[in-house]
C-alpha cells in the first residue's frame, strides 16, 4: 500500500511570493491534515480537511489556506511568504477524522 505522498520535496521562494504544496493521501483515506515543523517550535497543527471541507484550523494567519479535491488530495497555499515560514510542512491522512494519522515525508520550504 502506498503511503502519503507530498510534492515537491523542496521548495525555495523569496519573501512575498506564494507557495503551493501538494499532498496525496493513502487510498481510502478521506481526512487530510497539514502540520508545520519549524525549527525550535515543534510540530504545529495547521489545517484539517475532511470530505472536501475545512474542519479545523490551527493558530495561523489567513495567508495559510488550502483545499481538498474530490479525489481527497489536498493543497496548502501560503501567500505573502515571510522568512519565518521556512519550515518542514508535513501532510497526514486518516481513514476518518478521529483515527490515527499517517504522515508523508514532508516538503521543505525555504523562504529567502
Amino acid at each position: 500500500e502506498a503511503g502519503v505522498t507530498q510534492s515537491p520535496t523542496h521548495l525555495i521562494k523569496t519573501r512575498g511570493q506564494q507557495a503551493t504544496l501538494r499532498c496525496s493521501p493513502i487510498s481510502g483515506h478521506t481526512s487530510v491534515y497539514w502540520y508545520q515543523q519549524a525549527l525550535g517550535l515543534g510540530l504545529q497543527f495547521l489545517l484539517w480537511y475532511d470530505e472536501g471541507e475545512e474542519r479545523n484550523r490551527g493558530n495561523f494567519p489567513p495567508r495559510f489556506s488550502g483545499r481538498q479535491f474530490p479525489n481527497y488530495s489536498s493543497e496548502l497555499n501560503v501567500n505573502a511568504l515571510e522568512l519565518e515560514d521556512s519550515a518542514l510542512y508535513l501532510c497526514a491522512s486518516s481513514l476518518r477524522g478521529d483515527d490515527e494519522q499517517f504522515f508523508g515525508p514532508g516538503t521543505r520550504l525555504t523562504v529567502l
Partner: protein
Amino acid sequence: AQRVTQPEKLLSVFKGAPVELKCNYSYSGSPELFWYVQYSRQRLQLLLRHISRESIKGFTADLNKGETSFHLKKPFAQEEDSAMYYCASLRGSSNTGKLIFGQGTTLQVKP
C-alpha cells in the same frame, strides 16, 4: 490550553539499559494518546496508541490518568531504537482532528 509535555530533549542510554521517555498531558475530557517515532531520514510513523494496548518493538506505554502521564518504556534498549520520539494527543473534550505534539525527545542508544 491543551498541552503535551516531554521534559527531556535528549535521553542517552547504553545498549541493554532500560528506557523511559516521559510524557505528560493536560486536558479536560478523555484524550487519545500516541507515540510517534522518526528514525534518521525517515518519515514520522506511529509507534503505538494507548487504546490498542499493544507492545511494538518491545515498547509499551500505559496511560496514567491520575498522574496525567503516558510514559514510553522499553526494558532493554537497542542501538536501532535511536531516533526522535514524539508524544501526541488527538483530542480532549471534542474531536478536532488536531494532533497536539510534545517537543520530542531524542533517544540515543550507545553501544
